[in-house]
Each structure stands twice: as C-alpha cells, then as structure tokens.
C-alpha cells in the first residue's frame, strides 16, 4: 500500500470563456488549475493556501471529480479517477467527502438534518434498515458534537456553526478516507471558527482521516496542517512541512503572504516587515509566460519570463519551491507557442 492516497499529475482545469449562444468557439481560456503536481499522504492534513481566485477551490473540486479536469491525471488510492466508470466513481465518492464553505447553502432547506446525513447511507446502501440508519445518524450527530434529538429539525433552525457540523457529519457518514474542507470555516464567526477547527482536528486523529484543508487564512492552516501547499494562479508554487513553509518560506510569493499575517507578540508585531506586492494578480485568462509570479516579484531576473519554473528542493527537508532563485530549473518557454498573453514586466 502506497503512502500516497491522492495524487495529481499535470492536473489542468480550463474553462472556456464566452462562446455562448450561437458561437461554438470559446473566446478565451480561463486556466483555473494549470499543471498541478500534488501528493497527499495517507493520514496527513495538507493545508492549501492562496489568494481568492488562485484556483484552490477548483483544485479541491477536481480532486473529487466534482468539476471535470481538462488535462492531467488524478489518482485516488492507486486508481485513476479521470477514467472511472459509474460504479467506480460512486465508490470513490463514498471514500472521499467534501465539506463546503457556506453552511447556509450546502444543506437542502427542504430536508431534515437526519435526511441530509442519511443520504450517503441510502446512496451506498450502508446500515440497511430504518432503525440501523437512524442509529447511525444519531452516532454521527454526537460525533460532531450535536445532540441526537435535533435529527428531525430543518437546517434553518440552526446557527452557522451547527450547520457546518451537520455538513461535516454528512461528509463522514460513508466513513471516507479522504476529506476536502473547502474554506470550511471562512463564513463562520471567529469564535465558532476555532470550535470547528478543533472538531476537524479531533475527527482527523480519531478516524485517521486524510485531510485537504483549503483556506485563505494562513494562521488557521498553520494551526491545523502537517504540510502546507501554496497556490498562485493555478499552480502549486511551494509545498513543504507546515513548520518550514510557515516560518522560512523559500518562494517570494509565500514570503509576501506570510508577512501579511499579524503576529501575536506586540514587540514582534512592531518589528514585522511587510512585503507589499505591486499590482494585482494577473487574470487566469492571460497567464504570464515563464514564472507566473514574475510580474509582481521583487526579485524577478532574466530567466523568469523564459523558463517555466518546476518545483525543486529548497530550504528544509521535504520543502519544494518553484523559483529560479534556487537554481534555474524548469521547462523553457517555446517562443513559437506562447503559454499566454504576457504583459511585459517593468
């Protein structure tokens, strides 16, 4: 049994832009996920961070085949899920769950909490029989810290944090190995965020889950994760042990991201140097050639526009960064077929 549970190789999710109506040829291509290589180890919590729109949610969805990938492969426990048949896909869906961002939108308002949590059981024919299923729903409710007496209630009768617990219970009902938490705490109050975060951590340890924790909140990710992956414009640009990436990042983008997190100690907070990036994230419809961070990078130099950097060892053990500062490694940009429209770096 391999140590890697979920693995992406050259994963691409491109969306056509425009071309609606009678025009069948799209006007452009939005590269939401653009060549991601990622291994998620059994039993680990991998934090995935990045700005809004960098493709981290799309990546999470593509790993579960909830959005179709347009290139590359995803393997789940040794099986390529991009070519699964209906039955295989269904079994994969039992073994991999998802917790969604907005707990107000992710529960069907017309179904009771019990009906929502029991859905995976019904779909996969688990715990057959009404009494057994009801008992299992009660167990799941207690597992996520809710009283089993709430089973007959509707979602609108609950607070955001309680609803998110229901969403977690649903995701756990089929006893999955892998759980994707897509901004699972972003729309909760700060006090409730900590509760849900701790619940996830406890469940992960107790059930031996493999967790992909997607968030734009770097401090929450550092708190929860074993490893951290940083995404920028559809690509993983740095990955490594949480302590290393969180304290000694090797990619200028991660350094900037980290410098934006306030420090708890007043003296250290006064000393904190902020790296302020110039400009906005380029549109994923017009990705810069070579290193996609070069248009905003304070250290950009000659190879950046011409060589697309690959992940290479940098810093601590197990830490990888896609940056030419650690040696120019990567695929040269073919002048004949440009990757995208490249605005000239100043």
């Amino acid at each position, binding site marked *: 049994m391999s140590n890697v549970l979920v693995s992406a190789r050259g994963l691409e999710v491109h969306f056509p832009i425009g071309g609606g109506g009678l025009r069948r040829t799209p006007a452009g291509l939005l590269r939401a996920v653009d060549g991601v290589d990622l291994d998620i180890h059994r039993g680990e919590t991998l934090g995935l961070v990045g700005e809004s729109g960098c493709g981290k949610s799309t990546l999470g969805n593509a790993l*579960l085949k*909830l959005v179709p990938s347009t290139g590359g492969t995803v393997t789940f426990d040794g099986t390529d899920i991009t070519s699964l048949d209906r039955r295989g*896909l*269904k*079994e994969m*869906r*039992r073994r991999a*769950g*998802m917790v*969604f*961002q*907005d707990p107000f*939108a*992710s*529960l*069907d*308002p*017309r*179904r*009771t909490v*019990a*009906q929502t949590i*029991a*859905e*995976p059981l019904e*779909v*996969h024919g688990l715990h057959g029989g*009404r*009494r057994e*299923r*009801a*008992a299992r*729903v*009660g*167990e799941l*409710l*207690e597992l996520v810290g809710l009283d*089993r*007496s709430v*089973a*007959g*209630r*509707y979602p*609108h*009768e609950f607070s955001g944090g309680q609803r998110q617990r229901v*969403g977690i219970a*649903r*995701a756990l*009902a*089929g006893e999955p190995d892998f759980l994707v938490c897509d901004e699972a705490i972003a729309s909760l109050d700060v006090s409730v965020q900590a509760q849900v975060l701790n619940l996830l951590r406890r469940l992960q340890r107790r059930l031996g889950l493999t967790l992909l924790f997607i968030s734009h909140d770097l401090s929450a990710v550092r708190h929860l994760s074993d490893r951290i992956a940083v995404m920028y414009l559809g690509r993983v640009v740095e990955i490594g042990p949480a302590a290393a990436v969180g304290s000694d990042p090797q990619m200028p983008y991660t350094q900037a991201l980290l410098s934006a997190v306030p420090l708890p100690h007043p003296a250290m907070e006064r000393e904190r140097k902020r790296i302020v990036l110039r400009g906005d994230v380029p549109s994923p419809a017009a990705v810069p050639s070579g290193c996609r961070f070069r248009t905003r990078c304070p250290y950009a130099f000659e190879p950046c526009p011409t060589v697309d950097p690959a992940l290479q060892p940098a810093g601590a053990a197990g830490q990888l960064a896609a940056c030419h500062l650690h040696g120019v490694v990567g695929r040269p940009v073919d002048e004949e077929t440009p990757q995208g429209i490249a605005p000239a770096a100043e």
Partner: protein
Amino acid sequence: MTAEPVPLRPVRPRWRETLGLLVRNKVALGAALVLLAIIVVAVFDRAFAPQSANAQDIADRLQAPSWSHPFGTDNLGRDILSRVIIGASVSLKVGFLSVGLALVVGTLLGLLAGYYGGWVDDVLMRLMDMLFAFPAVLLAIAILAIRGPGTSNTIIAIAVVYVPIFARVTRASVLGVREEVYVRASRSVGASDFRLLTRHVLPNAAPPIIVQTSVSLAFAVLAEAALSFLGLGTQPPNPSWGLMLAEGREFIGLAWWLAFFPGMAIVVTVLCFNLLGDGLRDVLDPRQRTLMAGGGR
C-alpha cells in the same frame, strides 16, 4: 455509544403538519373547502341535480329564478341549476385532466432541459418555442380541427397549449436550483442524477410550478369554455359551463340568469384554485412553516 434510534423523518409527520398549517391559513382553507364541495357535487352530479340536464319544458322556458327553479330555466325550458351541476363534472374533468397532462409532460421536459442544459436544452426548448409561437386558442382550434371535436380531444388540445408553459416555468426554476451548493453536496456523496432530480432539484423548484398549476387550472376551465363557445369543445345538448355561457349570451338582455350562473360557477372555481395555490406554496416551504407555526398570521 448507545445506539438509540433517532427519527429520520420530521418530528411530526409532514402531511399532518402541512394540513395543520393549511387549517391555520383561513383563506386557503376556505378555498379548499369550497373546491371540495364543488368536486363532490361534480362527482355525484346525478344525485345532486334536481332534474335531468336535457329535460326540456318549452312552456316553462326563460323563467327567472324561483323556488321551483332556483337558477331559472333556459330558452328550451331546461333547469339551469341541474345543468350547472352536471356541467361542473365536464368542466372540472377537462380542467384537471388537461392541466394534469400538461403538468406531467411539461415539468418532465423542463426538468431535463434545465438540468442537463446543452443540446438537450436547445432541442426541447426550441420545440416548446414553436408551440408557444402559436396563439393559444388558434393552436387548440387547429388540434381540434384535425382530431375532431369532443371532450377527450379538448383535453389533449388544452394540454398541448399548456405544456410549453410548464416546461418554461420548470426550466427557469431548475436553472436556479441546480447551481445550489446542496445539489453539488449531494453529488459529492455519490447521489445519482435521478436522485438529485427527484429528491433535491424538483422539490426545491416546485413552488412556482404549484402556483402555475393553480393558475392553469383556472385558465383551463376558461379555455374549455372558449372552445365550447366556438363549437369545438363540449357538444350540445350536453352542458358545460363554457357552453352554457355561450348559449346564454344570446339572451343576456332578456334573461341574465342564463349566463350569470355558469359564469359565477367559473369565477368561484377559478378564484378558489388560485387562493389554494397561493396557500399551498406558502405551506410547503419549511422556512415559512416555522415562521407561521411560531408567530401565526
């Protein structure tokens, strides 16, 4: 951990709760009771009608309402009360069956078009647009001209007219619901398309369809009246409300009751369908439910 079963169903059975809320909604309850009465009378029309619908008594023609003929008599001396009662069965049968047919076919087409999108949507909705392009009455007349007049053909003609309306209303509603996160959430736990459509999409897309049904029932009764008026629907001497209205039109200045009573029957029935539809839409929404059960109105 103790494995004590918890209720999978709502705490109280849903239908009982629904009924309870409907009882609280006085307007909808009133409408439901009146409709129930009309339906009972229509089903047991022969038992309720004091006379046969077609029994003529020329000596007694065009009598104003009186104790012996509460709704008066028509130009052939037939008892209008009896004809309204027997006409109710024809009018309601046409209304329920045509709308029922249109509801089933239209909702199914709209559901498929809205959920799958792409070429399925294009093909189905362009077909619906073609049907929609004809004026409703013209389309119904054309169908009846091809298939010949009669009650069952009238039902088919009205159903064909209403299919595109149900398809459009359903599609529009489904387009919104299918993007909801809870639909994706159900897919993420492995639910099939069939399950998503029947358990999540359709129930959440239903409120506008319910309202459309009640409005269409009302219009179908009127459409039957219009077609009978043109001589294509119910054939004389059999009564239907529309046909009676048409026949009464000639005598409107002389004997108002010929057109008035079947007209009132249409108005009351149509109004009750609409009020009940609005009430049902409110009552079937769990979010409204708690508000209404808690605060009352």
